[in-house]
């Protein structure tokens, strides 16, 4: 009996193979999601190859003088410096490229950590139920009733520092959604036969979670994680804008806007590009996440 069911588990995988192929086919039909995907690929490549794309500039060095402006600080765009120079006389284009590195990295890493922690708590909570479930869910609810941004501000002023500090600060607040999602998913998977069968043939909870529950609750997690990237990029940008995130001289899209309001009148072009970069990137992640959701959830695909 149990063995037969186990064979069915084998069929499941071949079914899930065609499932993923179908998902991909549906995603391919989702034009905006595909445009976003390609855009993001280009963006990531630009961040990776920031060096060669910088026209020989680097984001840290102060330019001594430019021929088309009296002073290098806040100089408008000109040859070799397509976006001009910032308030300290550094090349804005290369800062934008390198800033993209930081912003994207923070977005991806925080989202990954959030998804991993969320998966962990969600699986445990859903699988074991009872008091474990109650404690984890209470904790999740507690985290959800915190005023996130004020606390992030406090936190990042308490533990000042590096890229990893900011990743830590953002990640703390980015796992709750996934935990709830996964818990719900596990609760419904637990009712299904293959979980029961696996338990019947004496598989350990760890293996059941790893082999059966984790892969089967992946779909909504992927969507949530994709959407979370854009949220995390905005958090990073906001904190850096407030002067609490990525610190000078390291560039990030957020801290490039740090002084934007003060030179709004003299050098407005400096505030266009980092903002536009953040906007189109988060937009692309949101569209991609939405497309993924439609592709993974055929109920809504009509």
């Amino acid at each position, binding site marked *: 009996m149990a063995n037969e069911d186990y064979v069915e588990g084998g069929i499941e995988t071949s079914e899930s193979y065609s499932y993923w192929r179908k998902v991909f086919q549906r995603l391919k039909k989702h034009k905006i999601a595909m445009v976003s995907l390609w855009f993001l690929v280009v963006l990531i490549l630009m961040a990776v190859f920031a060096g060669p794309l910088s026209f020989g500039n680097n984001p840290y060095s102060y330019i001594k003088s430019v021929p088309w402006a009296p002073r290098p600080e806040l100089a408008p765009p000109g040859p070799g410096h397509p976006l001009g120079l910032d308030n300290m006389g550094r090349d804005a284009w290369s800062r934008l490229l390198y800033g993209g590195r930081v912003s994207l990295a923070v977005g991806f890493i925080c989202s990954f950590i959030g998804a991993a922690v969320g998966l962990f708590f969600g699986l445990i909570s859903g699988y074991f139920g009872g008091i474990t479930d109650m404690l984890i869910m209470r904790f999740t*609810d*507690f985290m*959800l*009733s*915190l*005023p*996130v*941004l*004020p*606390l992030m*501000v*406090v*936190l990042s*002023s*308490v533990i000042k520092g590096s890229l990893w500090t900011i990743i830590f600060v953002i990640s703390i607040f980015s796992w709750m959604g996934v935990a709830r999602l996964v818990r719900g998913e596990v609760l419904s998977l637990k009712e299904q036969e293959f979980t029961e069968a696996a338990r019947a043939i004496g598989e350990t909870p760890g293996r059941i979670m790893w082999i059966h529950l984790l892969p089967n609750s992946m779909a909504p997690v992927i969507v949530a994680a994709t959407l979370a990237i*854009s949220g995390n990029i*905005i958090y990073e*940008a*906001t904190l850096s*804008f*407030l*002067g*609490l995130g990525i610190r000078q001289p390291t560039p990030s899209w957020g801290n490039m*806007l740090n002084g*934007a*309001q003060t030179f*709004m*009148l003299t050098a*407005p072009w400096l*505030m266009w590009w*980092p*903002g536009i970069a*953040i*906007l189109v990137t*988060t*937009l692309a*992640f*949101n*569209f991609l996440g*939405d497309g993924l959701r439609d592709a993974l959830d055929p*109920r*809504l695909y*009509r």
Partner: protein
Amino acid sequence: MRNYLIRRSLELIPVLFAIAFVSFWLVSKMGDPFAVLVLNPHVRPEDIQRLRHIWHWDDPLVVRFWYWLKDFVWPRQGWGLSTLAPGQTALQLISRRIPVTIAFSSTSLIAAIILSIPLGVYSALRQYSVADYILTFFAFFGMSMPTFWFGIMLIYLFAVKLHWFPAAGYHRAFFIIKGVPVMFDKAPRWMQFLDEAWHLTLPITVLTVFQVGGWLRYMRSSMLEVKSMDYVRTARAKGLPERTVIYKHAFRNAVIPIITLIGLSFPGLIGGAMITETVFAIDGIGRLTYNAVMSQDVFVAMALIMIFSILVVIGNFLADIFYAVADPRIRYS
């Protein structure tokens, strides 16, 4: 229903307690609130010693927390002295700045609800129409827009370039009435109100757009999901007019999950208000939080974090109640 309310409110107490402790612990890591008082000309060294004693600042964290919480609930010490605004207590500072924050964030909360729900329904009913695509794009735009940058852009366009709205603050210092300058506080109430509305238009826009996008999309997909439910088909099979089918049977069910979503988005609203106030230089509690953190004004920051937490918890609580009212399945289970 009454039992449900009582039970839910009792459940809030431990949550609030935990939040209070965590935020107290975190904020007190910012620095020593008494060290900075030395620079305050209003406070004598003996006073500092006395204050330190009153707040039990040399005792362990838990004891400190206890005295702080006592004062927060029953403010005999006015929640502690501010270092940012010398001579004022945190309570004085905060209570003067809280009205504007409440006013403009609740306005934009209501505006966002009023906009997103009908637009979401409309978008769902006209799925794949031009209007749906436009709304969808607008919604994604709102969801993806970094609030602070949107604020900066609006300031640049409408304040700096077009001069339609002011760039900062939430009211002018004085009016000129019949050639005579009149202080803001002395001006007629309606003038004050109009001036504040004029100043707050851009901030409210920023905060509203920030919230509308997600809710609109959620309302849309909720409505789409409900539209294909069996009971909607039953309603049609009864021969009800399409309007009744949609607005009585589908809508009521579709709007229930939105209530939870709105309740859960209170932290976001607070964060949004904080950024908006900072960008538009509005002297509310959001900007105060930022300033307090930047200048290590420990007592003010502590009280503010606590107030925000209470607001969030109250928001969730209200959402729960609305949910229970809207969904008959809740009350008994």
